[in-house]
């Protein structure tokens, strides 16, 4: 259905370049930004609640990096939206140009394009570190390739973010190994975390229509090119962690096209409350 809609828009008599930006690049940037923002928000739920002080600081630092990355993507997306136009399903301010804050605080669930994986509840520490590992393994491969994007701004954001993601990947892989190859209880908790999260991993590595289009234009990354590398990384770390790699299909999908689990609404309700209740509030 989503495919059909974007196809119809593509047929409008506008230039190819404009259509690429409006129909594919803007959704792509929002998708990348939303992934980082929502996972950053989820991780920030640990701030002040981490298992020990050092790890509280670590997960909060990772949250900060992710939210910083999302700002870079949102700023770029807002500039393109103001320049080329984009139709949101949510009610957006019309009389002025949009900012990064409008994109984060005023879009409702159906305009969010993050993967289902990042919006899942933080769960216990095992679930949090496993989710971070799945995601950082994906982001690290994605940003490595995105550095070669023909879009200079996107390449620059990827180059900047990759350095941070490398740390996230190393930290989360260490934790997966420590808990998987740890005590009976920590191993058991990792198995439960795998059960809870594996089903959402497929979506990370499957192209949506906008990803296919931006990849074809040399701007985005074709996810099929990193899928095998992602699996190799998971297998290598799981082996060291004495954890089984699930053979079942990771079947849940839809977040990247705006179809979300019930969890995203609660995150947005918390995150957007102030701007909704007191529009344009500043402090």
């Amino acid at each position: 259905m989503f495919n059909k809609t974007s196809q119809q828009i593509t047929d409008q008599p506008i230039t190819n370049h404009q259509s690429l930006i409006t129909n594919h690049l803007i959704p792509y940037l929002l998708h990348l930004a939303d992934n980082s923002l929502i996972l950053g928000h989820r991780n920030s739920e640990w701030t002040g609640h981490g298992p020990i002080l050092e790890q509280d600081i670590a997960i909060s630092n990772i949250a900060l990096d992710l939210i910083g990355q999302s700002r870079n993507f949102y700023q770029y997306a807002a500039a393109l939206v103001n320049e080329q136009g984009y139709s949101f399903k949510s009610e957006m301010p019309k009389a002025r140009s949009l900012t990064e804050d409008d994109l984060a605080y005023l879009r409702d669930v159906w305009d969010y394009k993050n993967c289902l994986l990042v919006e899942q509840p933080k769960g216990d520490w095992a679930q949090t570190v496993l989710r971070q590992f799945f995601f950082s393994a994906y982001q690290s491969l994605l940003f490595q390739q995105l550095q070669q994007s023909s879009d200079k701004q996107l390449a620059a954001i990827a180059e900047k973010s990759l350095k941070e993601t490398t740390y996230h990947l190393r930290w989360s892989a260490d934790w997966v190994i420590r808990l998987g190859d740890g005590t009976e209880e920590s191993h058991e908790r990792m198995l439960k975390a795998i059960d809870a999260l594996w089903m959402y991993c497929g979506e990370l590595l499957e192209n949506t229509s906008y990803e296919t289009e931006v990849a074809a234009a040399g701007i985005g990354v074709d996810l099929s090119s990193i899928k095998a590398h992602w699996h190799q990384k998971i297998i290598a770390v799981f082996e060291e962690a004495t954890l089984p790699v699930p053979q079942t299909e990771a079947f849940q999908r839809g977040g990247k096209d705006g179809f979300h689990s019930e969890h995203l609404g609660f995150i947005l309700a918390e995150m957007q409350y102030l701007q909704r209740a007191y529009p344009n509030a500043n402090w």
Partner: protein
Amino acid sequence: MVNQEENINLPVSQEDEIQKLWAIMENVPDPEVPVLSVVDLGVVRNISIQQSSGDEKIVVDVTPTYSGCPAMDMIAMNIRIGLLQNGYPNVVINTVLSPAWTTDWMSENGKQKLKDFGIAPPVGKSFDTASLEDIVVECPLCNSNHTHLVSHFGSTSCKALYQCDDCKEPFDYFKCH
């Protein structure tokens, strides 16, 4: 000041003025690590002067250390204030992301200042060559090489936590990035 009379007769070359602007930047401290200036840190990438219809505009290119570094807004403000105090009200701060900031840009002077402040300076060049576990970080307090990593992430994005096995003091290490 000394050259003021000269200035009236001869326009100071732009190069001289830019030198002066860099000198002002050397007195703008980093808010998290106040012993370092924004120049020591490598955050200020370029300074240029743009003339438009008689108006002079100072353009300062800055690059963030980490994407989410909360000090960046403060750094931009400190740069504005520093320039304003020196008679440059018309300032544009431009954020550049590429090439991405690296500790390789930190001045030697900056590294020494870090150490004197009690923070171990980045070891080696470039982020990819050695992992955090493989490097030897010298204790900034007793100079011992017997130290160990406590956590990849420290009090700010740019630091890791270490402890010295000889003097037992915990300390911050400015990560090679």
